């Protein structure tokens, strides 16, 4: 267990706050830019603009669950509790974005497909992924011992991450109503630029959220480490 750094306490450093604000401004800008520059879609009209939140949400959700996978593996390997905290933070943020993807997709689906929901492979697999990480978070809240919680949730997180590629490939493996992945060549540049910019903005936001959750957990731990020093300090070997 590493001792707490001396500067572990206190309010967020100015740099952190600045990063948050800049990210927010950048996000507002990319949204405005994408909406303003993209022409109305031939089929969907202005509905198409949901894409600029829907697709980046889905992508960062994958990325967040990927972080869960990697930090869980690292935790089991090195037993570094920071990896566990990072996994927890990423799982929370990933679940939120997964939920957002679902909600945005449903809002999009209602006018385009005429239903809120259909049992399509992409949709279902996304919902399942969401439920898996709800289970992961439930497990974390049911287990109090930190070491036990770390090991158990690492196991569940690693096994759960198997489902990310399934969601990704679902449109290829099964015939779905949902759009299959396009690539830069198949998407006209007016749309592509906005999408990529928003992707960058979402990635920054996600990193910011994960970082903040992770920091909060670290402060808690640091406080405990200080109490450890206080508790153990007096003893003479």
């Amino acid at each position: 267990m590493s001792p707490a750094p001396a500067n572990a306490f206190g309010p967020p450093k100015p740099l952190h706050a600045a990063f948050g604000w800049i990210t927010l401004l950048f996000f507002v800008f990319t949204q405005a830019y994408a909406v303003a520059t993209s022409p109305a879609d031939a089929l969907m009209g202005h509905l198409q603009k949901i894409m600029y939140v829907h697709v980046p949400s889905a992508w960062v959700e994958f990325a967040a669950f990927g972080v869960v996978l990697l930090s869980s593996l690292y935790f089991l390997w090195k037993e570094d509790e920071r990896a566990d905290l990072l996994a927890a933070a990423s799982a929370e943020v990933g679940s939120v974005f997964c939920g957002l993807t679902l909600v945005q997709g449903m809002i999009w689906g209602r006018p385009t497909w005429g239903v809120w929901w259909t049992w399509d492979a992409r949709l279902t697999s996304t919902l399942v992924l969401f439920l898996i990480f709800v289970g992961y978070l439930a497990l974390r809240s049911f287990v109090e011992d930190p070491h036990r919680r770390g090991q158990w949730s690492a196991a569940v997180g690693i096994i759960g991450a198997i489902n990310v590629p399934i969601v990704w490939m679902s449109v290829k493996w099964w015939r779905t109503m949902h759009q299959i992945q396009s690539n830069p060549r198949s998407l006209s540049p007016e749309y592509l630029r906005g999408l990529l910019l928003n992707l960058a903005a979402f990635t920054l936001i996600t990193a910011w959220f994960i970082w903040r959750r992770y920091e909060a957990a670290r402060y808690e731990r640091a406080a405990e480490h200080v109490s450890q020093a206080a508790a153990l300090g007096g003893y003479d070997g």
Partner: protein
Amino acid sequence: MALDARGVARRFGARWVLRGINLQVRAGEMVGLLGHNGCGKSTFMRIVATLLKASAGDCFVYGSNVKTEGDDVRHHVGFFSHVPGLYDDLTARENLAFAATMLGFPSADIDAALERVGLTHVTHERVRGFSAGMQRRLSLARLILQRPRLLLLDEPYNNLDVAGIALMNGFIRELNAAGGAAVVVLHDLVPAEGVIDRTVTIREGRVHVPTVADFTHDGASPEAVTRPAGAAGVS
């Protein structure tokens, strides 16, 4: 060295229950562990038995680290805890047979162990209906099969009648004669008379070294009252 605890500490949430226990037990030594309710005796025993991880500090059993070499430690340690750890739907004999296989002694003499703890008359009855003391006796029979080199007994005399206490003491002495060591959690030194070499008291998460004050105050606060630790010790 049978047991070598160096600064073993454990917290639950933010509360540090053990704050650095230092305890050395040589092979052949029998140590009584005293302390008031909730001071952390069971927690310490569970850490030594590899059932709980220490938050800080190191602990060795016959040279094996309890944190990293759990399997070696489990070969040496026999733990008699607050709970019997038996299967209610198996008979007394089946419980012991299962334990013997799991311990790696599939050919141990189970009936002899049952006879020794006085449970021959219920060999083929299920444990479900056993009285508290009968369950404790059956747990003792499991220890008899195992013959561990380090005995960890957490309030071993609970629920046992006079004959049961004599049984328990006989078993402890036998292991001692074979060179084994023991740590025994006690609240009352009387039943352990003659089997304990010395006592150690946990207070405020550390091993307490008694001072003159301990033997002079009048015991007004419930927490502070402990029978003078050295009084009945033999060593």
